[in-house]
Every structure is written in C-alpha cells, then in structure tokens.
C-alpha cells in the first residue's frame, strides 16, 4: 500500500513538474477558457438582467470545453520516448497509473477553473449566494470530467483523430454531469429555479463513485491490451 502510494505521488509529481516547466497544458486550457468567456460575454451581455439564467450554463460549457484540451494532451508526454512503456513495464499497478493521471487532470482542470470562474463572476456580475453548493458542484463535476476524460484519453492515445474523437466519445457520457452541475450552480448563484441542490450533488457524488470504480477497472483491462 505504501509502495502504491509512493508510485502514485511520484507520477502526479512528475506530471506537475513537467507541466510547470513547460506550461503547455495549463496555459492552453486557461487561454482557451478565457477566450470562450469573452465570446460568451459579447454574445450575452446585451441582456445583463438574465445573467443568472445563462451564467451557470456558460460556466459548465467553458469548463467542459477547456478540460477537453487538457484531456487531449494528458498522455502526450507518455508517448514521447515511449515513456508509457516505462510505466507499464514497471511493477506499478494499472490502477495506480490511472488514479495518478486522473488526479493530474483534476489538478490541471481545477487550476484552470480558478481564473476562469473569477472572470465569469465578474463579467456577468453573478453573486454566489450558496458558496458550499457552488464549490461542491464544481469539485464533484470536475472529478467526473477527469475520470471519464482520463480513461478515454488513454484509450484514444494512438488514434489518428484523437482531438475529434475524444469529445465525441466523452460528451454523451458527461451530459448528465453538465446538467447536474448547471442545476446546482443555478441555485448557488441565486437563479429563480425550484431545484434541490442536495439531490443533484448526491447524483454527482454517485456518478463519481460509480465511474471511479468503472474507469479504474476498465483502464487496467484496456491499457495492457
């Protein structure tokens, strides 16, 4: 168990060190998300009174699109020099590799979300009246995006049209996550909706738990094949 923990930490640390040295993924994700926010701002700012209605949707679409950029690049560094084989030929378990890569993707996405959300809240003048629900939806939703994205990113690593295929495969699976995220965020920003955020948060938690087990299991089968 200690050995697996050390291997997990080593892989996450390696990915973070390489990222902070090259700044390829984070910078691209952050710039893309900010660009999206600006486009949305021009599209919707003509009617600022309805910001609470469309703000949650803008938040989740931005997070979904920007996280896809990170997912597309997540295994690129393992391809150079055949490094994925250094992981697979080591005694490190496939489950440990998966959890480490998903954690890296989670950290990248959360780091991207911080400035993006700040920008959205300021641009659209959105108040966060229920910060707990807001943070809970973002964290649970981002975990779901990271789990599903990591699995399919690995699966499509060598696919010729990976950039196109990844969203085609993951978005249908992630639609419920986005819907739940929008529902909770709507309540969190004080939109006039009759939703119980607790139900949607429990849904997100359940989604994360089911997909954590399913993706962990599938990754082990798929990656060695």
């Amino acid at each position: 168990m200690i050995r697996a923990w050390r291997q997990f930490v080593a892989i996450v640390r390696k990915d973070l060190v390489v990222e902070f040295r090259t700044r390829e993924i984070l910078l691209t994700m952050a710039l893309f998300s900010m660009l999206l926010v600006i486009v949305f701002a021009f599209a919707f700012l003509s009617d600022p009174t309805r910001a609470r209605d469309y703000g949650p949707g803008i938040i989740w679409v931005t997070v979904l699109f920007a996280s896809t950029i990170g997912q597309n690049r997540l295994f690129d560094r393992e391809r150079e020099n055949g490094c994925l084989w250094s992981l697979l030929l080591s005694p490190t378990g496939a489950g440990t590799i998966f959890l480490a890569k998903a954690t890296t993707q989670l950290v990248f996405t959360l780091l991207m979300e911080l400035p993006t959300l700040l920008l959205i809240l300021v641009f659209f003048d959105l108040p966060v009246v229920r910060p707990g629900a807001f943070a809970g939806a973002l964290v649970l939703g981002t975990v779901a995006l990271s789990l599903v994205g990591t699995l399919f990113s690995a699966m499509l690593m060598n696919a010729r049209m990976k950039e196109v295929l990844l969203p085609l495969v993951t978005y249908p699976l992630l639609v419920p996550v986005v819907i739940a995220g929008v529902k909770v965020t709507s309540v969190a920003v004080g939109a006039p909706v009759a939703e119980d955020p607790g139900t949607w948060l429990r849904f997100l938690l359940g989604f994360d738990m089911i997909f954590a087990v399913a993706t962990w299991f599938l990754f082990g089968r798929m990656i060695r094949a």
Partner: protein
Amino acid sequence: MRVRALDLRADRVVRIAGRRHLLRDVTLSATSGELVAVLGRNGAGKTTLLSVLAGRQNPDGGRVTLAIDGRPATGAAARAAIGMLPHDLLIYPDLTARENLAFFMTLAGRAPDGAFVSDVLARIGLARDGDRPVRQFSRGMQQRTALGRLLVSGADAWVLDEPTTGLDESGRRWLLALLSEQVAAGRLVLMSSHHPSEVAACATRTVVLEAGRVVLDGPGGADGTAAAFARMDGGAA
C-alpha cells in the same frame, strides 16, 4: 540488493503482424549469470523477441514463463524482475537525469534514495550533468540515462536492444564492462547487437535468428561469436 536467480523461458513462441510471422516457434531459455547475445540480420526478429521476453509484447502463440528463485512469477513480480532498454529510451525528456532516476526508482517499488541516485549518476558518467533536462543531452548521454534507469530499478534481468547505440568508443567500452560486471554479479542480460567485437567481449552465449526462427544457439566468446556471425553471413548469402 541481492540479485535473484531467474529462469526465463520462451516455449514455441509465435508473434504475427498482419500476415507476417515475426517469430516462428521460438524456444529459448536463459538463466541468471548469462549474457545472451541475440543476433540476426535486419528484420530477423531480434527486437520482437526481446520485446516478448520483456513483456512488452504478448506472444500470439506459445508462452513465456519466468521463475524467480525457483518459483513462477507473473504480473508485478515479473515486471519488477525484468528491466528493458528498447530503442525508444523510456525516459522523460523534460525531467533532469536525476529526476528521471529518482522517479524510476520509486516506480520500481524502491524507497527514494538521493545518495543512491547520485552514485548511479556518477557510475553512468553524468555526475556533472545530472541536473540538466534530458532533452538537452546528446543521444549517448540519453542512452546512459536510460541505462541508469535499469541500475536504479534493481531489476534482476536486463533486456537491451542494441544498447551501444549513440555511445562513443569509450562509452562502448564502459557499457561492455558494466554488462560484464552485472553478469558476474548474477544478473541475466539479453542483448541484441550487430557488432562482433561487442558480442565477443561480453557474451556468454549467442543466439542467431533468421526470419523469426532460432537457427543457432551456441557459446559466446571469440570463437562462438565468430561462428554466429559466420552463420548469419551464410544465411545472407
């Protein structure tokens, strides 16, 4: 760290790519303390055989088995016992040599040990360059880093695909001395090579592949190497 006794066997191994047989009924066994040179012309199946023995490729027929200290080993135990150095070096170009070695030491299930990593860097001749990103290294220095990966992993068997690639003459001599030292310490080394002088210098056994079949399994040394290369030349004629 004690080197464990390994017995690595390939039993009627077949490997197919499309319609082409890369390996045909290859039967081979190798044990600790041997340095087996896998020889053959380009496309004979050397890389495929080494990849199958190291677990990088699965055989399409037959099987590969590993015993450690007389007990069958599979999964993580087998992967921990065998270290591979293929053509693609399996090292991270954006990490320094020191970071790479520390990382692979942890992946191999060993506790990180900075002093040991420094010792290995000195052994592979990169003591002064250990804190530079591998991307800035020459091919030979990258090859040394990749060999360092095997040293920190503590693997009981090394599978090396043309390991002198990119090394200068002194680097070749250093590597051959390192391999002889590892074999003397009880490690099993399997390596492919196209250079008779390298094979004669360190191999205890020679295996010649021709169109995916083992056509010669003989001794190493100067005479054995000469016979193996003569067999290859005969096959070419």
